């Protein structure tokens, strides 16, 4: 369970091995990136539904991780810690979108991230599932992505969303109910 407290204070000097510029920090960043980039990208993408924004969210998440690496006390909680940052970055993206008038002609088509090797049946379900997740209200979408796409324990979902565990569970419950209703036929065929 993610139990660390993240102090978002100023970073240490560059001569400090814990500083963002130190080779040790960079090595830790690369290791963190290699282990968690797919998950961080997935959380960002499944919330904002835009590949370019997901890239920005991923970059911002790992940059923040680099700056605050020394604040991460429990390595077993690093995934929840990263997803918490990614979620906040995704919310910031959505707020900027809301505040910025967008020409519908500029909105890119939903990126199809299913690989060519995906079987036809799985491809169809992936597309249906992706669309259904996108239609979830934001609060339910984030909880569902963290719990059922990324497999985060419920306590870590609560930490990432900065809510209580009961609230996290309720959001996951409601998300599953809405998705089940929308995908009833497709789920029953499997």
């Amino acid at each position, binding site marked *: 369970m993610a139990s660390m407290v993240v102090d978002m204070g100023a970073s240490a000097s560059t001569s400090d091995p814990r500083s*963002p*510029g130190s080779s040790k920090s*960079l090595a830790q*960043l*690369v290791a963190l*990136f290699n282990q968690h*980039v*797919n*998950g961080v*990208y*997935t959380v960002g*993408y*499944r919330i904002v539904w835009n590949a370019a924004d*997901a*890239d920005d969210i*991923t*970059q911002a998440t*790992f*940059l923040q991780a*680099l700056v605050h690496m020394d604040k991460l006390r429990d390595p077993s909680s690093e995934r929840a810690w990263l997803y918490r940052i990614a979620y906040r970055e995704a919310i910031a993206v959505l707020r900027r979108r809301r505040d910025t008038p967008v020409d519908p002609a500029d909105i890119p088509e939903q990126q199809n*991230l*299913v*690989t060519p090797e*995906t079987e036809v049946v*799985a491809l169809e*379900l*992936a597309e249906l*599932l*992706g669309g259904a*997740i996108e239609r979830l209200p934001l609060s339910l979408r984030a909880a*569902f*992505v963290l719990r*059922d*796409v*990324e*497999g985060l324990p*419920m306590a870590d979902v609560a930490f990432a969303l900065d809510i209580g565990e009961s609230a996290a*569970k309720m959001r*996951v*419950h409601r998300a*599953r109910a809405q*998705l*089940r209703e929308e*995908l*009833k036929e497709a*789920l*029953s065929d*499997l």
Partner: protein
Amino acid sequence: MTCEELGELLTNFLEGELNEEQTDLAVAHLATCPRCEAVLSQTQTLIESSRELGRVSLGSDHRSELLASILDARKP
């Protein structure tokens, strides 16, 4: 246990967080209620499918570009 009660406890049931008595009641209800059994089955399929199909696996080029952009962005 009624269908409505099981529906409300479904997530707790799937998370393994019901007590022994509640679990027994839920299992007994599922054994005799095709509708609730279908809901449970669909939910399990939804979770399994989401885990398998929902995650993005970035290609190696994309990963390299992202890492490079992160390392570049940290430079003063």
